[in-house]
């Protein structure tokens, strides 16, 4: 079955550290890729998305992600994190023209001030 794996369940960093959260999916066909973020007490919101074109996509708040098709990966990066980035991050995919989102288990990111 199609699935999304996030390698880190809980990450703790200091402010200004660089961030990379891993995400891999298992599906050989066309995918659309997403990173969602959920700040404490708030809605799930879209951080960035990849549908086609440049595999390096930039999102809100200085985040970016790179789609590497050969590795079935879509890792999330930020060069310098801030305390306000403390949140849970979800990698997600849709397959072919299907619109149901398949989520990873999430990574809880905690930034120390």
């Amino acid at each position, binding site marked *: 079955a199609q699935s999304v794996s996030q390698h880190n369940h809980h990450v703790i960093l200091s402010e200004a550290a660089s961030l990379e959260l891993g995400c891999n999916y298992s599906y050989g066909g066309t995918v*659309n890729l997403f990173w*969602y973020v959920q700040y404490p007490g708030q*809605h799930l919101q879209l951080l960035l998305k990849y549908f086609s074109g440049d595999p390096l996509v930039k999102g809100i708040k200085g985040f970016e992600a790179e789609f590497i098709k050969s590795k079935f990966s879509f890792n999330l990066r930020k060069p310098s994190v801030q305390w306000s980035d403390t949140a849970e991050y*979800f990698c997600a995919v849709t397959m072919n023209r299907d*619109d*149901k989102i398949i*989520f990873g288990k999430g990574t809880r990111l905690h930034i120390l001030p």
Partner: protein
Amino acid sequence: EPEVTQTPSHQVTQMGQEVILRCVPISNHLYFYWYRQILGQKVEFLVSFYNNEISEKSEIFDDQFSVERPDGSNFTLKIRSTKLEDSAMYFCASSDYGTYNEQFFGPGTRLTVL
């Protein structure tokens, strides 16, 4: 900024009781979804709804579940006879163009079945 709203934020019910979770999608959106997240597990797709009918449903969405758009603004998820394992956070989402557009999520309803 328009947003998806959900009520109630927390529902506690006894096993075997019926519950209705309510969602108000963004007003010009045409595609509606329910997802759920059992504590400590992934967010899982339940059902998608377009043009007043279910477009797709997961294995989780059995005969105990139903969805409805009773008027032009609400989108509801009904669980006819709740089980302990239905305890989860239920998220509603909506989008305007289905596959290639962003789904906007509501804040969720936490359902606790005792």
